[in-house]
Every structure is written in structure tokens, then in C-alpha cells.
């Protein structure tokens, strides 16, 4: 039983994500994971203490958490600037949430569990991905803002600081949850198989694109003429 769909370089592939987008995604992923682990080490109970060795003790973890926090917030911003068009396209797509997306979301649980369902044509990002975009981005922003407040509490009003703690926790949890699902769907879930390579190599098989993102596929074809 294969875990991840095999990469097939010889078939027709079309580009899905630019280098900058992929760089943003993976740097974000790595920093998020490190942040999560250092955060868990620092702020959860001692069950996570084994991680202390990895990060050079608690103070080391604290330092790493802060360094990662900066990367976590700065890199996406830089990438947005570098790949402004892609960014705009992404969010245009996310906000073009329509009937098909709702249909997708309704049918998604069945697909998720492996039942065969007919999916209406999706744009570059399907309804689920759109939702993931919104939730993850919002969480990241809130986690980042609350994080900075916690980092420099003395310059903020105490109530805001107090609010920052549950905020950081809640959205960290939501983001982590989304990351788990997203990670699974993007790699191990057989139905989303090829999308993994889209984020790794940048291209996906054309027929997969046609099947999963019909609207986008058609548009791409049209553009290529």
C-alpha cells in the first residue's frame, strides 16, 4: 500500500505553484512546526520535556521560538511582495466562493472518508482549500499578533495582554488542527494525491488537474491556447 502517489515526470504536467509560493509554503510549514514544538515544550506541561534536548533546553527553546516567530511573520510578507500576482490570484480565487464550492464542501466528508462522489468543477482551489486558506491565514495572523503582544507586553495595555494568551492558544490550536488535516489531505489522502507534488515540484498531472480543478484546468488550457 503506497502512502503517497508516485511522482510521474513523464506524463503531461501543468504548473500549479510558482517557486516563491512553494518557498513561502514550506518555510511557513517548517517555522510553524518548530514554533509548535518549541511552544509546546515551553508552554505545555512536562510531557513535552523530551523536546528540550532538541532545542537546547528551555531557554534555547525560548530563543528559537522567538527567532522562528520572526521568520514565520516576515517570510510570508516578503513572499507576498515578491509574488504579488500569485497572491492576488489566490485570494481572488478564495473569495470567488460560489455554488460549486458549497457543493464541494457538502460532498467533501464523503470524499474524505473515501467514498466516490461527483464533484462539481472547481477553480484552482477547491472549496475546502479555500476554507483552509481563510482559517489558516486568520489563525496565523492572530497567533502572530497575540504572540508579539506576549513578547513585548509592557508596551500594550494589560487587558490586551491578558486577551493575547487565550487568543494565542485558541488560534494555535485551530491552526494546528488545520495543519493536521491539510497535511493529511495534501499527502496521505489518496484522493488529493497529486496535489502534494504540486507543492513539492510545482506541477501536477494534467488529467488530475482536469478531474479535480476543472474550472482552473480549462482556464489554464485556454490561456495556453
Amino acid at each position: 500500500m503506497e502512502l503517497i502517489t508516485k511522482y510521474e515526470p513523464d506524463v503531461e504536467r501543468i504548473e500549479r505553484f510558482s517557486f516563491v509560493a512553494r518557498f513561502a509554503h514550506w518555510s511557513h510549514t517548517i517555522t510553524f512546526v518548530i514554533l509548535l514544538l518549541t511552544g509546546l515544550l515551553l508552554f505545555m506541561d512536562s510531557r513535552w520535556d523530551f523536546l528540550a534536548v532538541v532545542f537546547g533546553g528551555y531557554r534555547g527553546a525560548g530563543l528559537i521560538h522567538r527567532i522562528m516567530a520572526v521568520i514565520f511573520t516576515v517570510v510570508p510578507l516578503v513572499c507576498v511582495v515578491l509574488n504579488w500576482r500569485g497572491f492576488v490570484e489566490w485570494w481572488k480565487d478564495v473569495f470567488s466562493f460560489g455554488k460549486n464550492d458549497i457543493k464541494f464542501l457538502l460532498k467533501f466528508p464523503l470524499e474524505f472518508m473515501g467514498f466516490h462522489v461527483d464533484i462539481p468543477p472547481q477553480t484552482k482551489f477547491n472549496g475546502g482549500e479555500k476554507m483552509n486558506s481563510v482559517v489558516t491565514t486568520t489563525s496565523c495572523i492572530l497567533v502572530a499578533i497575540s504572540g508579539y503582544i506576549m513578547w513585548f507586553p509592557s508596551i500594550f495595555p494589560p487587558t490586551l495582554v491578558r486577551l493575547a494568551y487565550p487568543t494565542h492558544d485558541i488560534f494555535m490550536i485551530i491552526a494546528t488542527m488545520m495543519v493536521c488535516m491539510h497535511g493529511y489531505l495534501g499527502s496521505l489522502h489518496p484522493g488529493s494525491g497529486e496535489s502534494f507534488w504540486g507543492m513539492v515540484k510545482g506541477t501536477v498531472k494534467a488529467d488530475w488537474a482536469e478531474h479535480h480543478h476543472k474550472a482552473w484546468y480549462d482556464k489554464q488550457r485556454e490561456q495556453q491556447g
Partner: protein
Amino acid sequence: MAKMGNLYDATKCTACRGCQVACKNWNQLPAVIEPFKGNYQTHESTNANTFTIVKFFEYDDVYGPKWYFCKHQCMHCEYPACVDVCPRKALYKNEWGAVLKDYQKCVGCQYCVYACPFEIPKYHKESDMVTKCTLCAERVEAGGIPACAKTCPTGALQFGERQELLAIARERVKYLRANGFPNATIYGEHELGGLNKLYILGDVPEKYGLPSEPKVSSITTFWQNIVQPWFGLLIPLALAGSAASFFTTRFLKARREQQEGGATHGTHN
């Protein structure tokens, strides 16, 4: 072991601030010299190098001026919010009631700073840690009493078993109420479920800069009681869902392939 603590009698305090200095002497804290701002009080509140501070309050009534003094420091609460929020469990309550800190565990997150209803713990930038009064636990355990209680010239500050101190305080408040302090009150007996620093006040707590009903912020309570224990469950939930999917997808696929007799579907290879 019986709960030990301080009893501070504001009506006997002369604000000599011996306690403030004795605390620095014992805890080896440097001075924090700020310009004079028009009040005898040195700082707004405690700071990372000032674990205790005497606050000054001026009032006026028909009998003339009144000058109240109140020593502020960690209250060593029975149910300390700082201990609850401390993620590293650096803060803990010892067997005789002192809220102590294991500085090796402190990561400088400052959760305690914002959880404390009395705004006592303060962040020490140079060491990236939060500091506060220790009730001189090492002195007490070596057979002594806290530096502040030892140095107090008038006996406004006593150290002893909480129950005994409470008895003294009740007597004293009774006396004060009958002798010109109708609002005299004990502070710390019931507040926040009991404090290990008891106060005898000659007037209402607000006039001494103490909240009459100290409360841990509802945000902090929500965070501690709802978010921390329950929200985290979302993650295992997500992981469980994914795991389930991992198997069901593969199981259903295999079954489908069997039914369709090996016919392939372009997408699912």
C-alpha cells in the same frame, strides 16, 4: 505543616520603609533610582528589583489630614493565579503557604505578571525572568523570619502561623473599630479564598490601594478553565479524523477495485 505568613498592621506602620530596604539587602537586589515625582512613594508599584514597596495615600477630612501607608508585595494567595498560569510550573506553592519560584524553570513568559490580581510579579529584563517576593522561604526554613518582618521597628509586620495571626488581627480590628477606626477591617482572610499575607487596615481597602474584591481577570479564568483544558482536544480530533480517513479511503478503494474488477480510474492511481 501549618500555613505561615505575615500580618501587616497598617495602623502601626510609620512608613520607615525598613522593610523595603531589608528586602533588597536579603534578596541582593540593586537600587532602582528614579527621579522624585512629587510623592514619597519611590515607584508606582513593585518592580523586578523591588519585591516590596510601601505605598503612600493622602486624604483629608474634617478632622484634618490623613496619611495611610500600605506595604505591597506578593500576597502568597491560597489559590495563586500565577501558579495556575505558569506553563513551566516554575511557580509553586510550598507546604507552608509561600508561593515560590524555581528560577531554573522560569522562561520569562510573563503569564504570571498578567494573571496576578495584585499586579505583583515583574519581569526582569536582564535575566529574562519574572521576580517576586519569596516570603524569605530560605530564611524561614533555616529557622528565621522574613527580612521585612524582622526589620520592622514598630511591630507593624509580624510573621507567624496564619491562624494565630488571624486571631491577633480579629482582636486588633475589634479594638480599632471601638477606638476611632469604624471602618477597620481584616484583609486577606477571605479574599481570593484567603491570602497568606494578612492585613489590618484602618479603613476600606481601596484607600490603601488594595482591591476590595480582588479578582483574577475573567479572560484569564476563561483561558485557564476553558481554553487550556478543552480546546486542545481539537488537535487529537483532527488527527483521529485523518487516521480514520487514511484507513477508510484505502479500504473503500480496495473494495471498489475489487467490485470493478480491477478497472482503473484515471484519477485514483
